[in-house]
């Protein structure tokens, strides 16, 4: 294993963002208040968006911030704030379960390390286009038009379903 790394801006940005993403995820598990968890999750989402920027995928990055941080997190926070949380607090420790979980995690880590070390990453075919956003648009509306339309039908169905559910709750007055 060798660590002769070029300290490029890319490497430093990747390192910082990766640490941020992991810290956010760990904090989300460790906090006891649900609002804190939602916020640290948002922190992880932002760090992931930063990683996408490092990978030159600006469109994906800012859609990630827009949807996950802007919409999903606010939805979670709204839901949490509108409900009562009297029974928050430390749960009783379960030593057997925790040991088993730790062993499982270590095994998963070992498998991942082996898999990543054995994998060979082929060079990407051709370089990235200069305007990635434009290319995404072209793909979505030309080659991927049918899946794209199917997804929008799915979203419309979900939307109508949400409206129908909300309407039904209103009736018994």
């Amino acid at each position, binding site marked *: 294993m060798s660590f002769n790394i070029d300290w490029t801006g890319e490497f430093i940005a990747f390192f910082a963002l990766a640490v941020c993403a992991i810290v956010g995820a760990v904090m989300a598990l460790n906090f006891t208040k649900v*609002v804190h968890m939602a916020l640290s999750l948002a922190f992880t989402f*932002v760090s992931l968006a930063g990683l996408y920027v490092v990978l030159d995928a*600006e469109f994906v990055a800012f859609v990630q911030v827009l949807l996950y941080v*802007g919409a999903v997190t606010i939805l979670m*926070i709204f839901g949490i*704030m509108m409900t009562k949380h009297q029974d928050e607090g430390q749960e009783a420790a379960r030593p057997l379960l925790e040991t088993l979980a730790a062993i499982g995690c270590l095994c998963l880590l070992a498998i991942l390390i082996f898999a990543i070390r054995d994998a060979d990453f082929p060079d990407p075919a051709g370089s990235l286009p200069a305007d990635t956003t434009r290319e995404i648009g072209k793909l979505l509306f030309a080659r991927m038009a049918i899946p794209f339309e199917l997804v929008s039908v799915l979203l419309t169905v979900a939307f109508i379903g949400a409206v129908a559910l909300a309407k039904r709750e209103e009736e018994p007055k």
Partner: protein
Amino acid sequence: MEPLRFIDKPLTWGHAGLMVLMAVAVLAVVILFVTYAIYFERKVIGWMQFRKGPNRTGPLGLLQTVADVSKLLLKEDTIPAKADRGLFILAPALAFIPSFAVLAFIPYSQHLQFADLNVGFLYYIALSGVTTIAIVIGGWASNNKYALLGGMRSAAQMISYEVPLVISVVGCVMLAGSLNLRDIVEAQSGYFWHWNFLPQIVGFAVFVVAAISELNRTPFDLPEAESELVAGYHVEYSGFRFAFFMLSEYVYVYAIACLTTILFLGGWHAPIPQLDFIPGLIWFVLKFAFVVFCLFWIRATFPRLRVDQLMGLAWKVLLPLSILNIFITAACIELFGMGG
């Protein structure tokens, strides 16, 4: 000045220092803008109400904002006993950071821009969503019902108005054939009737209304409606934390004024090409100042909307109008070959 690319090169102390220096320079410009925007806001509103406005501190009252800010910074910093301490402290910073970060992508003139992003406008929308979280969190962490109500109103309003705001810009994007702000400005070159505010008059109207609402300013300042909510989400904040909320609000004014200039008023282009000898930056600043003045004007002269009217306006009027605008723009591009 080419947009500086550091990402593939080794990060030396020189590069890092240059980046920090540029950020500090932008921060200085923004702080200066905010200081005098507040001064001019009070002056303009005073003038419209037959008052003098601030005129005692310094010559013509020019140091009034400086005095106000130093008062805020010297004030006792109170944190309510039952507040969620961590989040209460975090919220003002979380509100300010994205507001400052959105300034990175604004092209002031052909050559002066910090980051040339091909997603352009999406960047602004994405980051301003983070400020919404900060406002909700600030309202919730204060543990005060007025603050919570203000925070909720603010979040609901900002999310609702984000939708027509984004869709109203799509027309400009279609005419320019690019999301990149620099390309959008380039597509508006020529005489002032080529600027997007005439071909995209519906989009422009929707954009202005939605933008004022995004800024939480009158007539859409329900989150801080003092007659109903005492002060809104920042009712428990004082001292420099309050200053941070105000600062981020004015930085968003700066960002929205820049965006209006870029998207609809031709950016750095002169109204007629014969005036091109005047540098683009000056045209940009003039248009920018005009937009900011209009925001103050609106604040001085409009009454506040009611909360139920507010949501109705966003979903029932602005959203259909902006979608209609997209269809009309597409039809014009197809039938008359407008745009690129």
